């Protein structure tokens, strides 16, 4: 069955995707895969996930719409189909999430011909994993406050500084780096680089531990890292513009990490209702507690609203401002995730004290874990507070709050 207004060519491709996925669905590995690619920590996990991504790339379901000379499929409107079919098939995610979601489009828009030919193919195949160096200890929400310094010395740049929250840096060959090349101008003093990570002299990667007790991101220190000028992306002083391109894609990447396997909000709310129906206390189920049920139903309605928001965003006649709905996505997605997890803790009551390793923890302890992780979502890639600024300023046109 084809969908929407697939062209005959697209319908054929969709059919191909389905067939390929049905035939190539991987058997689950004998070890635990974490819930998302940003939590991948072990070498075992890395190897398995890289093999999977490479296989999918070879099958032509990754980078479908990129030119062939950069490792893509050279098609138009195929990625949407491949991504939908990957999601529908529920196969594992792709490990090179930062590369696919952020580095690749940034390089495509701002890179030289040489850069595109050199960096994109191994990115798509996951032969080279990428990470992102934006946040610093002193600049989280205020990205343009970056202090990591790139000093020009002939045709080399010497980089010193400290980046934090760098997902996947422990596996990464390359980083997309926002650095300061001039202290005189805040925004115009930034330049964007591709820098080597694994094995590069002057680079130290240290894992950071989340409040959940898991690792999954890192801090990266640069001490006199020397890179050639050919690793600069776009012009000197244009780093902020390039970073805006990356951020444009970051939200999209966070929502659908380059492939299927992520749990949807609908899955999550269904799991919550299931939990409520099966959690009994004092002679009734949590679902039979009208106050708890009302809270869950409010969330069920918001989850449906979020789904419909996405559907409506694609109907021009029913949107007033082109960015109004898309820019709400990150805020809604992350806050609803948090609220759903919080409601689950209320349902569990005392059992919500039990964590991942406890055999009696309901649904494997996923909810306290999800609740804590939800703060990662409402903080990372622009806190909810910053998202509200952006919506108020870019969509509604109110004065900048700074």
């Amino acid at each position, binding site marked *: 069955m084809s969908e929407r207004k697939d062209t005959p060519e697209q319908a054929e491709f969709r059919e191909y995707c389905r067939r390929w996925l049905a035939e190539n669905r991987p058997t689950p590995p004998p070890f635990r895969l974490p819930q998302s690619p940003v939590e991948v920590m072990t070498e075992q996990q890395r190897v398995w996930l890289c093999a999977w991504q490479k296989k999918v790339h070879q099958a032509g379901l990754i980078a479908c719409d990129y030119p062939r000379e950069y490792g893509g499929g050279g098609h138009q409107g195929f990625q949407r189909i491949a991504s939908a079919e990957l999601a529908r098939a529920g196969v594992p995610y792709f490990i090179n999430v930062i590369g696919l979601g952020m580095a690749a489009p940034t390089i495509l828009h701002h890179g030289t011909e040489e850069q595109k030919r050199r960096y994109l193919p191994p990115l798509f195949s996951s032969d080279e994993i990428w990470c992102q160096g934006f946040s610093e200890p002193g600049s989280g929400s205020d990205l343009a406050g970056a202090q990591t310094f790139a000093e020009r010395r002939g045709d080399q740049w010497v980089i010193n500084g400290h980046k934090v929250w760098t997902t996947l840096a422990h596996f990464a060959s390359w980083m997309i780096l926002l650095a300061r090349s001039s202290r005189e101008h805040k925004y115009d003093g930034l330049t964007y680089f591709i820098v080597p990570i694994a094995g590069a002299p002057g680079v130290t990667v240290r894992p950071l531990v989340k409040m959940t007790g898991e690792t999954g991101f890192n801090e990266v220190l640069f001490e006199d890292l020397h890179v050639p000028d050919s690793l600069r992306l776009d012009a000197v002083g244009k780093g902020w513009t390039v970073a805006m391109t990356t951020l444009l894609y970051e939200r999209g990447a966070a929502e659908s990490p380059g492939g299927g396997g992520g749990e949807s909000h609908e899955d999550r709310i269904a799991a919550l209702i299931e939990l409520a129906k099966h959690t009994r206390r004092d002679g009734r189920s949590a679902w039979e507690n009208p106050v708890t*049920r009302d809270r869950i139903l*409010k969330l069920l309605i918001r989850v449906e609203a979020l789904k419909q928001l996405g*559907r*409506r965003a694609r109907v021009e006649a029913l949107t007033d401002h082109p960015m109004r709905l898309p820019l*709400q996505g990150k805020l809604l997605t992350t806050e609803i995730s948090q609220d759903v997890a919080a409601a689950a803790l209320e349902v569990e009551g005392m059992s919500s004290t039990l964590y991942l390793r406890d055999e009696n923890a309901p649904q494997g302890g996923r909810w306290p874990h999800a609740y804590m992780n939800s703060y990662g979502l409402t903080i990372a890639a622009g806190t909810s507070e910053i998202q*509200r600024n952006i919506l*108020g300023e870019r969509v509604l046109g109110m004065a900048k709050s700074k």
Partner: protein
Amino acid sequence: MQPKDYGFGEDERILRDSARRFLDEVASIDKVRKLVAADHGEAYESATPPARYDGQVWQKMVDLGWTALAVPESAGGVAMKCVAVAALAEEIGRRALPSPLLSTLFSTFVLREAEAAAARPWLEKIVGGAGAALAITNEEGSWEPARTGLRAQAKGDQIVLDGTAHFVQDARKASFFVVSAASDGGVALYAVAAEHPGVTIHPDHIVDLTRDQARVAFDRVSIPAAAQIAPGETGVAVLRSALPAMLTVLAADMTGAAEWQLQTTTAYAKVRHQFDHPLGFFQAVKHPIVNMMVAIDETRSLVYNAACAIDGEPELALRYARMAKSSASDTAAFCSGRSVQLHGGIGFTWECDVQIYFKRQRHSQMLLGDGVYQREKLAELL
């Protein structure tokens, strides 16, 4: 299969855009204010509360075919999709327009579900421009179809109606009422002309300036048995079938009104300066306004989803419509509160237009049941 675009195509866009142009002309906020809020004493102190609307505008709405939109072709209507009707209601709500259109649409939804030959002449009257209103609510203000304040008794080939319907919307703008009454066979439905002997309208003193509402008393109102539009065995089912469209169209009206509140508050936050900055500079103003927008977009998305289900997936319609009205009620409460608060002192005055929408929204919030009620009923559908 669900259409990706909610079935909102060219016809719907044309209807909506022409409605916008027409309403821009006849229902500017200045005109609406003149109509309903010219004087606070008249609004709230008159012995008989006002029921003002512009009859000429109503006649033009009829001429534009708006009362025929939801009427089946068999009764002379144009039977447009619910997404079209919802889009129109959104525009009406955006203007806080006083008119019997919503009540008449509600009556239409009931009559067209009745499928009785007796319903047809009433539908034709609606196409012809007669306003109609539902008289189905008891003194508790219950929205359960099975609960009615009236009793119907057969007397030969006549049926005699007794009792009082409460919270009848736009009662004084309606030429007839669609009435539910407990009969021996269950809750049956009837249509009764407003001027029928024995029918008395007792207007309520209400807060909302854009509606009128009344208790409608039926004192031995005798109508021909053939005028029954749904017998006792089917009355509740008919009302229930009509409910998704009623909920959705009301929620659409509320969405439009909330969007007006958002735009008006945003505009004020840009021009009003305090502490050497426009209000919108301050996050204590900016963020609540953004939260209004987020709430509205959730509601609006749910409204079109419900309307689309009514058009194509009736088995899901009630579920989605309950979601839409639950969301609309909560959004209305939030946006109304913030629109007044963020206007500061001026927002609290009669002369500021936000009060008109504030009151309409509080009223709409309760109509057909508030958010808590919708969710309680939704739970039964899961």
